């Protein structure tokens, strides 16, 4: 459905994308996961035909983002990271406006947005600028969907949204997927990866890996342990000095450690237990592996 092939993009001296390539299959939720500044938004802007890549090619539904941009614009729904609807128009006016702009009507595709927009209907006459963050997000999603796009592109939709709304948002996406809409979503939160069918980990304008979250976790090569003592900061220094410690970093209240040896060395005053790696651990592993090359 979405094919990106070796995309490069520079902003003056800064290399934002250094040869990005991946394929999104029709009808899946594809997550683009990476920290701030990894190049996610730049990639979105290229895929949504807002800017053109310096080199490389991208197609959506077989249409080229440069030559067929007019066709593409009819088929995609885009929700930018920043709320980009008219704050001085009401909820209803915004939805109607975007329906008109796509040459359709609210009634025609109401079924698709009913569940999301339904929650907003009590505030139909409120100006969009006066909505709460979660409400704004629902309105933006409704407006992005009102023309029944084949592909929905969401740039960091959950940034700055509370955990309950985030969960709610994920289940909304699940339902949209069942309606046959391909969804490309970007997020800086590694814990959202598990909700995607497949993910691409991106860092410094390069894709680290593309696979399903389970397979990425399964490919983690080492046995991972969580370590904790009454002074984690000192423990981190201590562990990093040991020759048998391969990698050690902080993750929440525990340290994550991998060893060069099979056996776990005994350390007094330190609680060590084996843990399942998460996507974040895989990201750190892949990123350091690439940096060491």
């Amino acid at each position, binding site marked *: 459905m979405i094919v990106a092939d070796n995309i490069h993009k520079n902003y003056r001296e800064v290399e934002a994308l250094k040869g990005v390539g991946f394929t999104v299959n029709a009808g899946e939720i594809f997550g683009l996961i990476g920290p701030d500044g990894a190049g996610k938004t730049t990639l979105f802007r290229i895929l*949504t035909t807002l800017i053109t890549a310096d080199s490389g090619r991208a197609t959506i539904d077989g249409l080229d983002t440069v030559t067929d941009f*007019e066709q593409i614009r009819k088929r995609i729904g*885009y929700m930018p990271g920043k709320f980009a*609807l008219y704050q001085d*128009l009401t909820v209803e006016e915004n939805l109607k406006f975007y329906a008109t*702009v*796509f040459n359709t009507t609210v009634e025609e595709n109401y079924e698709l947005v009913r569940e999301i927009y339904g929650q907003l209907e009590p505030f139909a006459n409120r100006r969009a600028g006066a909505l709460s963050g979660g409400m704004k997000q629902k309105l933006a999603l409704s*407006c992005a969907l009102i023309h029944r796009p084949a592909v929905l592109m969401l740039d960091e939709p959950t940034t700055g949204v509370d955990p309950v709304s985030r969960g709610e948002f994920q289940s909304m996406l699940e339902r949209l997927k069942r309606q046959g809409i391909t969804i490309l979503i970007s997020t800086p939160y590694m814990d959202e990866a598990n909700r995607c069918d497949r993910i691409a980990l991106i860092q410094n304008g390069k894709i680290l890996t593309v696979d399903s979250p389970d397979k990425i976790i399964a490919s983690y090569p080492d046995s991972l342990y969580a370590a904790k003592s009454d002074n984690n900061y000192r423990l981190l220094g201590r562990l990093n000095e040991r020759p048998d410690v391969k990698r050690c970093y902080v993750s929440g209240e525990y340290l994550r450690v991998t060893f060069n040896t099979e056996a776990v060395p005994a350390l007094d005053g330190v609680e060590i237990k084996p843990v399942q790696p998460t996507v974040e651990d895989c990201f750190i592993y892949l990123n350091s592996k690439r940096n060491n090359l």
Partner: protein
Amino acid sequence: MLLKYLLEKEFKQIRRNPFLPRLIAAYPIFAMMVFPWVVDLEVRDINLCVIDNDRSAYSRRLVAQASASRYFHLSELAATYDEAMESIQRNQSDVILEINPGFERELMRGDCPDVMISANSVNGTRGGFAGNYLSQIIADFSADIARESPGSLIEITPQYRYNPHLDYKNYVIPALMVILLTIICGFLPALNIVGEKEKGTIEQINVTPVKKYLFILSKLIPYWIIGVFILTVCIGLAALTYGLIPAGNLLVIYLFAVLFVITCSGLGLVVSNYSSTMQQAMFVMFFFTIVMLLMSGALTPVKSMPQWAQTITWFNPLRYFVEAMRAVYLKGSGFWDLRTQCFVLLGIAGFFSLWAVWSYKKK
């Protein structure tokens, strides 16, 4: 059809703006009711200090004639020149008229008696006008005397064409209308478009199938309409309050207004294409507006500028609109008299529109 919805949205947004509708209503009223009184180069209420060393019937008659004029106000009768100078230094007088002893005697003999005019020229314009007005009064006075005695001289009656009462307001009001249109149709669309850039809303529009030219048109048309509306209000106000009615055809005024409004919004578009924040756009527009305004002849005549500056004014759209407005308003010029201005303005309008489209496409 789509344009209709886009325009509907623009007008909704303009109406809901907390500030714009008030500005659009208040600006023409303010510009027509206040500015013509403030931007007035006429010099009035000049304080006159007289040293009458003759104290004769004729000298008193001259003093009476001077102080009866609407320009002068007799502030002091000094005994000596030093006393008069002191009054000037205290800022109580602007100009001194000194009449020598034997003024009447020499007049009766048929000689030319001398009087001295000394004007305070710290403010050059005021000093110059004071001296000129006073010499004119003395000239009138001597003409009167000459008429009373046999063998009268040539009489000069000046006739001021097109603005018979030399009312500066008539001169400045058409120019004020031009300034108003520049601000409404240049600044507002530029700020509006950059505002959408700043808020990010333009991004959401750009991923829709809306054609760019339609979107830009939907931004410009409201301000074209508002501009023509404001001009109409101004013309009405000028007629009602100052009795200033265009001597020529209103249609010529509107033809020029439409051309000018397109030029202004084109310039605004160019600026908005090159700026990413409202602040940037504001400063750049401000810079261009001030330069164009000062070099347009709206406030000071183009003819009195140095030659190089006059050359620059050839490229200034404001200049042509100001010329046309004054010509239609005061001289009653028709389209054919103003064809040069019209075609040059058309050229500038085309230039800015092309540049705007070109710089917009580049992104």
